């Protein structure tokens, strides 16, 4: 019986076959179980010997079953693993990666730098009135300074803001000093477009107002920005310039090394200066009109503004600003950010 069972176990090809063999020999009505039952009629001596023999057989069958089961399981696993093999070099399912427009990225980066210095980011309308875009910023009608901003006028007498500076007055109308804000946003210039000029672009405006604020604080803020953008060795230079809403007015330059050529040069990054007294006055006048107290009589402040696209163009070597709003994915996806 043992030989027979072992032969069958060796031949079993599946776990089911093995189970059938197990039942046939070891089950309730199995042959071995029958053989145990048949011992009843034997005398004690014989029964003992027979019992021992049958137990040996049972153990041998059980062991063989176990071994065979392990073999079969291993074979099945091997087969399954083979079956489930995949070509891992195939391309993956294309998940949409998503990304920010490069102008947004630079703005975010700048906003982030100034937040670390305690500034808050605020925004304002793009269709502006003449008062906030010009008059309140000490740019009266018929003044040649208006030629500095080629303007898109709207038929209703408003205009598309030519800079983010209108938010200086808008913010002061509604808030009290001290404060530090930055204003990211779209601005518009009525200019023929070419590789370096766009009729629409982005600016970041900054304004800090409080008691005892000086041009040295402006320089400190700009230097911090320059270092965050261009590394800890960045340098900043102020050069006299003219923007009607600041006095003194300066242009700020940053020593910049072209990552492609390794050559350095002073880069005009934007305009800045100390807030002109007439801007504070315009804000206070507007507050008074709205029934709010005058709060800008005893403060000083600085303001600055810079263009966003230019920073991107220099950083990445983008040759033509007109690419920015073509919104071709071939352009957009070149500026990944984790």
């Amino acid at each position: 019986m043992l030989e027979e069972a072992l032969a069958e176990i060796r031949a079993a090809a599946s776990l089911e076959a093995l189970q059938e063999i197990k039942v046939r020999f070891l089950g309730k009505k199995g042959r071995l179980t029958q053989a145990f039952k048949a011992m009843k009629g034997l005398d004690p001596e014989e029964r003992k010997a027979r019992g021992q023999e049958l137990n040996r057989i049972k153990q041998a069958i059980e062991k063989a079953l176990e071994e065979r089961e392990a073999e079969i399981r291993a074979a099945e696993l091997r087969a399954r693993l083979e079956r489930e093999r995949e070509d891992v070099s195939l391309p993956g399912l294309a998940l949409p990666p998503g990304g920010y427009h490069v102008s947004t990225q630079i703005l975010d980066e700048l906003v982030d730098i100034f937040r670390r210095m305690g500034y808050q980011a605020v925004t304002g309308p793009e269709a502006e009135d003449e008062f906030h875009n010009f008059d309140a910023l000490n740019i009266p009608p018929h003044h040649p300074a208006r030629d500095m901003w080629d303007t898109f006028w709207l038929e209703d007498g408003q205009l598309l803001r030519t800079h983010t500076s209108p938010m200086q007055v808008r913010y002061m109308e509604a808030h009290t000093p001290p404060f530090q804000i930055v204003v990211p946003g779209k601005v518009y210039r009525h200019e023929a477009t070419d590789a370096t000029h766009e009729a629409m672009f982005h600016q970041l405006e900054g304004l800090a107002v409080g008691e005892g604020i000086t041009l040295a604080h402006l320089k400190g803020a700009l230097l911090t920005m320059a270092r965050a953008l261009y590394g800890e060795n960045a340098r900043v230079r102020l050069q006299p310039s003219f923007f009607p809403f600041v006095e003194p007015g300066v242009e700020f330059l940053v020593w910049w090394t072209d990552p492609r050529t390794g050559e350095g040069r002073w880069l005009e990054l934007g305009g800045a200066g100390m807030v002109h007294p007439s801007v504070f006055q315009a804000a206070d006048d507007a507050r008074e009109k709205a029934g709010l107290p005058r709060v800008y009589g005893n403060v000083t402040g600085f303001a600055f503004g810079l263009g966003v696209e230019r920073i991107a163009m220099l950083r990445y070597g983008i040759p033509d600003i007109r690419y920015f709003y073509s919104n071709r994915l071939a352009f957009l996806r070149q500026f990944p950010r984790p």
Partner: protein
Amino acid sequence: MNVPYSWLREFLPDLPEPEAVREVLDALGLAVEEVHRLPAPPKGVVFGRALKAEEIPGTELKKLEVDVGREVVTLVSGAQGARADIGLAVARPGVVLPEGTEVAAREIRGVTSEGMALSPAELGVGEYAGGLLELPADALEPGRELAEVWPEEVVFELELTPNRADAFSVLGVARDLAAKLELELVEPAIEVEESPVARFVTVEVADPEGCDRYLARYAGGLEIGPSPLEAQRKLLAAGLRPINNVVDATNYTLWELGGPLHAFDLEEVKEGIVVRRAKAGEKIVTLDGEERRLTPDDLVIARRTAGGTEPVAVAGVMGAANSEVTERTREVVLEAAHFDPVRVRLTARRLGLSTDSSYRFERGVDPNLPPRAASRFLHLLQRWTGCTVGDVVVDVGGEKPRREVPYRPSYANRLLGTAFDAGSQLAALARLGCEVAGQGEPYTVRPPTWRVDLNIEEDLVEEVGRILGYEHVPTEPLALIPAPDNLNAEEPYRREEDLRRAMRGLGGWEVINYTWQSPAYLSLTRAPEPRRFLKNPMDSSKNALRTALYPGLLENLAVNREEPHRFFFELGHVFLDVEETRLAAVLGGPLLEAAWQPAYGEGYPAVKGVLEALAARAGARVEVRPQPHQPLHPGVSGTVFWNDEPRGFIGRLHPEVEEALELGPVHLFELVLPLPEAERTFRDLPKFPPARRDLAVVVPEGVPHAEILDLVRRFGGPYLESVELFDVYRGRPLAEGQKSLAYHLTFRHPERTLTDAEVDGEMGRIVTAVLEAGYKIRE
């Protein structure tokens, strides 16, 4: 403004080398746009004296006999000014011109031209290419190498800011350099030899507001001809075109001192001059040959005539042809005046005529300059031509006093963050021409009248900073504690950033589109009618401010037609009756794709999924109720309720638009920001097991899921925790036009386990409600 280095050096003998000057100019705020290096005339170009000129019959050409020293050569020239008795720049065969051509002898109409008479542009010494360099006949010995007396030049092209009216002149730039570098400034010579004159003009200023100073002077015994070589050299280097000695002397003085002048032929204005408003519709032919219609806002210079007065110049802008200096002029009236800046600007704008004169007047000319500018003009003209200068000075209006500005050096330091001592601050102001008085703060500073931009203390602070140098401004950190009302100022922007970040995380590409659109395209894409229009669009068809974001996003889909993933979003402003900030997204294909695999996530469920994920991130409830929207397919269109408020629309683009733009199926949503936020309170974690039941409702095809959801929620009792749609079935055994919506319902009591009987009771109420609403339950 082009400033030749050699001209500056006339006033500043100790001026450093051009490279150093460039840096100082930048540091002064007189930004150097470019430094041009003009070469001397090419080697071999000599001075020639035209002895004879005759026309070559049947042509516009002239045959010139020119004395070039050792010989007389024949030259052929087509230039208008080619004539006898002038000096010319002559290149003989073999001379190589700056742009590379080699001059050769040529036969023209049977006449051999043994070289060329050159224009300033051909010489490389100026831009003027429309005629010859015409010099006085006796300017040099014939045959003299021109380069020996015409050195190379460095020209600073300055990009001046509009406040620095004073710097629109060589002397103004020299003054700034002198103040900064502490150099000696040699003022331009103005002395003249005066003699009595037989006749002159009277001047009446009828509009003193438009003209607060009018000065007239006399020069006579004139012979109109070319200016001296050195004067022409400087004018050309500055970018001006030499015309004749009188006109050149006005331009020279304008460029040098910043004071516009105008010379009339005395014969044409001898009855007298009136400065008055133009009459409505009055006409004048300006020097450029244009007839211009004037209005009473324009100021004119008029001459008296038998019948009244007649304009001879648009004040401060341009003279008229009827009184200009011509070859026959022997006596001139020189006008040196000061006009109202705004009036000049408005007139120049209305006439579309910006001249060197109007440009300076509108920015602000020194009101006390006229006598000095007139003297400088007369000095130059007398030196150049030996003319007589009349001893009469007609001068209407007087000197303007200087303004007084109180000045505190301590305030300058408080504004600049510097430690400049008072002495050096006051000295800097004095070097700029300010008069400084007083023993202590506040000092009284009287800025010179040419500095029309110095009006308040801060203006003087800037001057001190400019002259002493911003490199002395230290770098300081600013730490301030904002006033409380500022603390949450950036909340709206933060929420925009959050949305942008979420959209990017979901796989959208952010785009930024133009704010303007064409009304036709907005109409084609079924966007709202535009409300606001540009008065001066760049592209006349795109003159409307956009009324929605999605039309731009559709253009982005089109331009990226070849791309597999076309999932774009934009956060920007649209312009309806009010300006709104919006967020829109379009999906022009599946969310997930691999070319060798089936696409996943297409159509409406995909765009809805994006919206729902966005809401889930924001912790907001979002629901879409079927409702037609103009841009959308009427059968796939809904209103987005964000925390129960309608905030936008979602659906499939209207098939007409899809076809018109040749796009496949497009799904999109557009939301108006800011999105309302919901109160968020913590719900304790569930402690007791839920009870689950399923419910399938059979409804006609047109009944939306949202309606059943509402019904179930309304009658589900207080312990209905969630309702989740798990199947939508159509087909047998359901009747045609019917569908089955199947839901998992979860009930839970916060404090105990619900019994089956309780849950059955709740289900019973729901079933009753469904049946009462006229729908069937599918068992």
